[in-house]
């Protein structure tokens, strides 16, 4: 079995070593499988470990690479897949009891792309039920139970890509796929001390993935570095006629000519979040200082006034009611784990068509308004989340509380903007902090470039959680 020093390598490093035949895809897969089967249950990280499929794919990759047929940067590299994406013949539970025994007879587009790239599927990864589509109030709202944070197992990984965060952080696989409707990838990325990229809306096909809110859902790579996220996006991105919101063209990476011209212009958001954890603001500022010392221009920026958070929340609730209409009308939503998820859809069913259209018309203004900020900045920077990880037993029921108006995940998700979080320090409880970069819609290269520049001058991403 390969040791931790290999299992914590980046996707790029693993790919390079496999291409040079210094690492065997089969041995690498067996090592990740063994670690996944040992640590995965402790972390509630997986829904299904796909051992047979993984070994079959690894053997095929090994034979092809040995024969000189190298498919690209993910060839022979294992990965985990959030359990809301269809893999033919394997359970796809959406993290929810009503779908505990459901399988699809086809592959999602993203799985087909990864198969063509020669990637190795280690397992379907745990998640919050329905990715939180009908609401949830605790970490336990999952068919697989609460995912535990490898940095301290009393703490949560965040959701809804809860297992994806745990898998990458604990090196059960070098990368995993998450999804993000509003913060479901950026938050687990920040709390688990890894890189997590939410691509621009439409960049990655969602055909074969569970829908919550069609106008906001994205599929997202989570890995050890920003560079790895770019590599994965170059494989999974690109137009797909099966997804009506898919944007034209491929996503090339690396593509220096598509990155922002130097110096990189960074806007430090001064009015994001209602409250930040002590120390987090300092960590973000220290990260920006490093970027400044390495050629970036950093200046203050402010999110304009507007009901961003309300429009984001309403869009999700309104579209989710339609996505899960069968579940609501049949009453099977009462089989969900979370008390809020059982009833929330009924309240959402009472929104009017006029309300929905008003929300979407206001959204158009908000999109234009936030887009204008990027005339002055290549990326906006702020904390990945407002705090370090919270305790698993902490219930966060904000369904009836006040709503923040400047939470970056709501604003950027609503407007389809790319965002990438990478680790930038630790709390006093030794839990990771993240700094996120938000880019103009379709400018995924800018957020990758900013985070990559930071990681090339910092080593937070090389820290390992105390889990064995």
């Amino acid at each position, binding site marked *: 079995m390969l040791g931790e020093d290999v299992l914590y390598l980046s996707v790029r490093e693993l790919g390079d070593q496999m291409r040079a035949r210094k690492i065997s895809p089969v041995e690498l897969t067996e090592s990740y499988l063994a670690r996944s089967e040992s640590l995965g249950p402790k972390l509630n990280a997986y829904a299904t470990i796909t051992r047979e499929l993984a070994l079959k794919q690894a053997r095929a990759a090994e034979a092809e690479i040995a024969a000189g047929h190298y498919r690209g940067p993910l060839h022979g590299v294992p990965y985990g897949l959030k359990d809301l994406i269809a893999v033919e013949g394997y359970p796809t539970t959406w993290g929810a009891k009503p779908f505990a025994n459901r399988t699809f007879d086809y592959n999602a587009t993203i799985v087909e792309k990864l198969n063509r790239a020669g990637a190795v599927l280690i397992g379907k990864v745990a998640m919050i039920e329905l990715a939180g589509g009908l609401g949830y109030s605790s970490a336990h709202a999952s068919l697989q139970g609460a995912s535990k944070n490898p940095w301290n197992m009393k703490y949560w990984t965040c959701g809804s890509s809860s297992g994806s965060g745990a898998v990458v952080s604990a090196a059960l696989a070098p990368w995993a796929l998450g999804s993000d409707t509003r913060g479901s990838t950026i938050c687990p990325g920040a709390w688990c001390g890894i890189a997590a990229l939410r691509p621009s809306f439409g960049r990655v096909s969602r055909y074969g993935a569970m829908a919550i809110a069609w*106008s906001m859902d994205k599929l997202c790579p989570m890995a050890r570095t920003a560079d790895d996220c770019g590599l994965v996006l170059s494989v999974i991105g690109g*137009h797909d*006629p*099966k997804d*009506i919101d898919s944007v034209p063209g491929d996503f090339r990476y690396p593509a220096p000519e598509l990155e922002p011209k130097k110096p990189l212009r960074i806007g430090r958001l001064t009015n994001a979040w209602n409250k930040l954890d002590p120390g987090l603001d300092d960590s973000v500022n220290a990260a920006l200082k490093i970027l400044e010392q390495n050629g970036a221009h950093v200046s203050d920026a402010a999110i*304009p*006034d*507007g*009901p961003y958070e*309300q*429009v984001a*929340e*309403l869009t999700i*609730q309104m579209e989710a009611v339609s996505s899960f209409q069968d579940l609501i009308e049949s*009453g099977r939503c*009462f089989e969900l784990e979370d*008390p*809020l998820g*059982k*009833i*929330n859809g*009924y*309240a*959402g*069913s*009472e*929104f009017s068509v006029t*309300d929905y*259209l*008003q*929300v*979407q*018309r*206001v*959204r*158009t*203004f908000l*999109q*234009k*308004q936030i887009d*204008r900020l990027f005339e002055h900045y290549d990326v906006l920077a702020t904390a990945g989340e407002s705090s370090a990880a919270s305790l698993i037993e902490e219930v966060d029921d904000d*369904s*009836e509380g006040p*709503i923040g108006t400047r939470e970056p995940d709501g604003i950027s998700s609503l407007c389809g903007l790319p965002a990438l979080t990478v680790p930038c320090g630790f709390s006093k409880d030794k839990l990771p902090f993240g700094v996120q970069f938000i880019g103009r819609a379709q400018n995924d290269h800018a957020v990758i470039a900013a985070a990559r520049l930071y990681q090339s001058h910092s080593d937070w991403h090389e820290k390992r959680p105390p889990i064995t």
Partner: protein
Amino acid sequence: MLKSSTDSCALRPESNASEQPPPTISRRQFSRKAALAAAASISAPALLGTTAAPSASVQDQKGEPLKGLTPQQVADVDAKFANILRKYGDRFSDDQKKRLRRILAQHQRLMAPVREFAVQNGDPPASVLRVSFDRQSEHKEGSGD
């Protein structure tokens, strides 16, 4: 609340109803208020399954009074609440019913600043019909090419 923007292409100024109350109620407003009033007046006793002396049991199911909402918003909440109970009432426990009503109240709070946001006749929604499909790819997919 929204601030007026210096950029004419940005946020539209709000319709500041509190400063300039409309002299007469519009047909649309009247219809809406009438519908809400009608729904509220028939809903509580009839739709909560109580016909006589409804106040105590209705209040039990509704829970605590809703704070921070206008009377019209409360009426809207109760009309929707009654509609849910009419369709699915037997699915909920008493506690769930109370929570449901609080969620409906939260929807009102979320919608308030959005409803206040002035939009003009031609302002389109963010979701639009796409009239250009990738027909070639779809054809290939369908024909198994």
